[in-house]
């Protein structure tokens, strides 16, 4: 049985990838950080009781900032494939925690590569590094492909730049099978609630049910290439099944602004949003009730913004035969439906007298 080790298994991509690999017949090992609260809600449906024999889904406590811990886990598991999805993954937060971001995102990748070498697994273990379209930052050309030079615009992007190049270097220097997937934004109902897409679908659903009045956002003009995470994890696996290791851009090739995302999500909930004003004064009104439901809060602006990203994934489409299956509109519909259902559950709880935390940030 082939074995895969996933760092960041409790995250959006980790959960989808684990599910995907289990279906492919892998024994899946995941690394999760120790926390005093449960943090496994995205993978609880995959959980197997430790008392069962022949388990195919196993979790290990670990941390990308701890070298010896990583070496020990990799030594025990002897994985055929490692997917490094763990990171401090929030761009805005990285401006506040630049050193931690560098430690986890940049050195974390290096520690894994070193662990593979130290254990003499260069010929056995293949390595996938989660790289990001944020590397392109202040873009030098549009659309962006594998040849487009990087221009990182945040401590997060700089740390990821290090991880990208150190993966390339270990491939070239030591013949390690290491690949970077340069993934453009990928969303889903499992996306963290503080990321803009999920904040929008969740916020609008809660406005719909009366939990919240206004959705506050940062830069509405930001344009991104948004795909569905479930489509993208397949690519991670495909890259590691090729004859030669290579880096690939993964994107839909379609671009929408944050404002457009809000409008489409609003339509799913029966809001017809009219936009008025400019810059920090811009507001979104529900045409039916003439109520302001979207506003700008400069606190969500970043010291340096990434204005527009658009990916060209021709290489992946040609060489890996990959196509995104889920459209922008379908993805938003799925996210809205999920968040509306959660809001309905909360409403039910509240009506029955149970406390419901609001969880707004």
């Amino acid at each position, binding site marked *: 049985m082939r074995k895969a080790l996933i760092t960041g298994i409790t995250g959006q991509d980790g959960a989808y990838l684990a599910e995907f690999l289990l279906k492919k017949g892998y024994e899946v090992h995941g690394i999760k950080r120790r926390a005093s609260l449960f943090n496994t809600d995205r993978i609880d449906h995959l959980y197997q009781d430790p008392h069962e024999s022949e388990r195919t889904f196993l979790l290990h406590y670990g941390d990308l900032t701890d*070298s010896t811990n990583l070496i020990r886990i990799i030594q025990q598991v002897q994985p055929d494939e490692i997917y490094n999805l763990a990171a401090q993954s929030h761009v805005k937060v990285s*401006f506040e925690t*630049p*050193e931690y971001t*560098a*430690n986890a995102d*940049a*050195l974390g990748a*290096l*520690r894994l590569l*070193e662990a593979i070498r130290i254990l003499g697994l260069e010929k056995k273990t293949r390595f996938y590094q989660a790289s990001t379209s944020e590397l392109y930052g202040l873009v030098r050309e549009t659309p962006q492909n594998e040849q487009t*030079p*990087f221009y*990182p*615009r*945040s*401590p997060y*992007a*700089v*740390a990821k*730049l*290090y991880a990208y*190049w*150190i993966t390339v*270097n270990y491939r*070239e*220097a*030591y013949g390690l099978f290491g690949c970077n997937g340069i993934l453009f934004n990928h969303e889903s109902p499992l996306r963290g609630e503080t990321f803009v897409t999920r904040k929008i679908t969740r916020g609008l659903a809660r406005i719909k049910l009366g939990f919240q009045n206004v959705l506050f956002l940062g830069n509405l003009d930001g344009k991104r290439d948004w795909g569905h995470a479930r489509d993208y994890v397949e690519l991670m696996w495909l890259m590691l099944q090729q004859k030669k290791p290579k880096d690939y851009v993964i994107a839909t090739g379609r671009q929408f602004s944050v404002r457009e995302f809000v409008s489409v999500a609003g339509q799913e909930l029966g809001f017809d949003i009219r936009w008025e004003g400019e810059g920090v004064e811009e507001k979104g009104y529900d045409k039916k009730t003439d109520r302001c439901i979207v506003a700008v809060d400069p606190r969500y602006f*970043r*010291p*340096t913004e990434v204005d527009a990203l658009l990916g060209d994934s021709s290489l992946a489409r040609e060489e890996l035969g990959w196509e995104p299956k889920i459209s922008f509109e379908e993805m938003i519909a799925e996210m809205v439906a999920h968040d509306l259902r959660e809001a309905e559950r909360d409403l039910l709880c509240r009506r029955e007298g149970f406390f419901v935390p609001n969880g707004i940030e």
Partner: protein
Amino acid sequence: MGKTALIFGISGQDGSYLSRLLLTKGYRVAGSSRDAQMSRFSNLIHLGIRDQVEVQSASLNDFRSVLQVLKKVRPDEVYNLAGQSSVGLSFDQPVESFESISIGTLNLLEAIRFLEAPIKIYNAGSSECFGNTDGHPADELTPFRPRSPYAVAKAAAFWQMANYREAYGLFACSGLLFNHESPLRPQRFVTRKIVTAACRIAAGMNEKLELGNISVERDWGWAPEYVEAMWLMLQQDNPDDYVIATGETNRLEDFVDGVFTSLGLNWREHVRTTRDLLRPTDILTVRANPGKAARELGWKARNKMRDVARMMVKEEKATFESR
């Protein structure tokens, strides 16, 4: 009142030449070394300026230490020349390379932000960031393609500088310096190794000089000139990044020839190449376009590779004969 400069990595080649330059410009010069009491500062002594600079202990990996030395010295200009500086060594110490180069730069930038003082900062970038440019001369817009843990860490530090300049308006400049040599280069650098061995051979020692790939091509300049470019960057109206190089590319073999010829020797009789000294990944050719530095800083390299070889030999011979 003259300005104050704080140099991280003052005990190295560039730190020492930069100290000398800034002293002649009337600066108060302070510098740091990881352990100032244990360091011999032999380069500063060599240049005869050891007693003119204040030295402090500081480790760039330690935020408290960086903050403390900035508060104590209160510099107008900071030059970050510290950090693991060997490409070869970075393959054996990749984590240390990242921590000293990249986390170090980050600590310095964060400390300057924290102090909210108008401190200008120069960071030592590296031509190693460019990797193989397929014969194209690298300028400030050439994409990076780093080929060693050292170069990857330097690339991260370069972008940290750019990001803090753009995000917070810091006066932050990176110099992308191509190889710059001098008699103060440590022995593990190939130029100094060649010069030292050639001088010993010229003095009658029976030995062979072992080298790795001598067909690699580099742009070699004279370090005492390069530190002028660092200073010039911080005297401009706006902070920016600059490529600093001679603009002339030569093979390592040509440098070897330059050194041995100036000693009246034929290098082919004394050099042996070995695979043991090859790096896991190496850069074959570098080419540089220092046009922007010439246009905007008025800086141009006066000494080219042959001059560098000749001057290094001259100084090495003098030390050798005085022993």
